[in-house]
């Protein structure tokens, strides 16, 4: 009687001890028009046939779900229309093994670029730097209104990205970042005003 009890305790102890080492990882990135999800255990073994939920962080509502394949991967279309708060990817690997990855808005491009996997961290391209150079050279400006708007949109979204990220985390934004972002906005407004005055002249 005593021996089986002792064994049971031993087994319970061993299984309980090994559970935390079974942490799971989930990673997601945009690849063309798709969101590619990869789920694995820390040693690199794939999480096979696990539930993946796709959640809009703004509303906490699940917008889609799926299951990982034999490689621990899952591919779903990029949400359309784009989600302003990004996309949370939640992996449920059973027995309380849960992990999540947030694709930030700046990680995702609504209209896919040819090499968006490589551009995951590159973010928005930086054409406006070239523009500054031509300004320095005193050459004429050859931007139409649409291009100008695009450039400003890109610059503003890039400068607001840290703010967005902080709002997402529901943390107090760093005052320095706020001041910095406002400074950029003022600077951009200045460039716009200056270009307008130049165009009139």
């Amino acid at each position: 009687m005593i021996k089986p009890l002792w064994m049971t305790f031993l087994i319970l102890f061993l299984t309980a001890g090994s559970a935390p080492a079974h942490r799971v990882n989930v990673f997601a990135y945009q690849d063309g028009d798709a969101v590619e999800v990869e789920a694995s255990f820390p040693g690199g073994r794939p999480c096979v046939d696990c539930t993946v939920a796709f959640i809009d962080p703004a509303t906490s509502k699940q917008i889609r779900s799926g299951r990982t394949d034999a490689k621990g991967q899952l591919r779903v279309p990029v949400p359309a229309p784009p989600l302003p708060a990004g996309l949370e990817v939640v992996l449920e690997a059973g027995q309380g093994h849960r992990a999540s990855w947030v694709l930030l808005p700046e990680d995702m491009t609504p209209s896919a670029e040819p090499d968006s996997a490589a551009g995951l961290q590159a973010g928005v391209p930086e054409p406006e730097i070239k523009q500054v150079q031509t300004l320095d050279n005193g050459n004429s400006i050859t931007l139409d209104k649409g291009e100008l708007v695009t450039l400003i949109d890109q610059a503003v979204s890039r400068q607001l990205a840290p703010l967005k990220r902080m709002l997402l985390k529901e943390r107090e934004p760093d005052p320095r970042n706020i001041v910095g972002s406002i400074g950029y906005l003022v600077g951009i407004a200045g460039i716009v005003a200056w270009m307008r005055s130049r165009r009139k002249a």
Partner: protein
Amino acid sequence: MKKILMTLALLFCIPHSPALAHFGMIIADHPVVTQDSREMQLTLSFSHPFAGHGMDLLKPRVFDVYFDGKTRSLLGDLEPARVMDHQAWQTMFPPKRPGVYQFVMEPQPYWEPAEDLSIIHYTKTVACAFGSEEDWDRELGLKTEIVPLSRPFGGYAGYSFTGQVKMNGQPVPGAEVEVEYYDRDKAYEAPSDVHVTYVVKADPNGIFTFSCPRPGWWGFAALNKGDFTLKDPQGNEKDVELGAVLWIELAPWTKNGDHPRE
């Protein structure tokens, strides 16, 4: 006569004192990259890390990242920086995928007149991105290298680190490993010069263990005589000290709800 001999012996010992050991350094601001810290700043320098004495680090010959069995040069990304008031180099590195990223610097040979030899420290640090820690023990096949036998990231103060010293892919029996704490804030004073650098010897398989008592960065430098010579500034062939250097960061024990990095 005995006194004179003793004095001579002492004098002879002084140049071999391990105080103020040289260390190639690669320090990351976030060696464990999470979703909240998606990139890390890497700072490359050459110094006496405990004493806070810097030396100029010329632009390294090699600065590579090893990831997933592939190697990529980051030399072109390095920007000049200052560390301990001397020339250093810096770059931001955004890991694109989960996994283990090993950074390796091979500096230009440093002529050390006091030791009458050139020094080359093959310097390495290991970072982990987005929770994936596969391959943390991978040997890179450097000229000389400390191969980690305990995970070189994600540890706490008090952690015992075990590594294997290799040269040309072979274990170095009885290798001498110098250990120093990077006292970035110059917060600590050594009671004597001997306390600046700790020394541990490897076993016949080149394996050593050292327990790091404080949170922060700890450097391990296994120094061996190179199997080649280099010219000194006068053009004479002189010995080369080859260092296999590894830097690891240990976290403080932090109470619930009190994360210093956030």
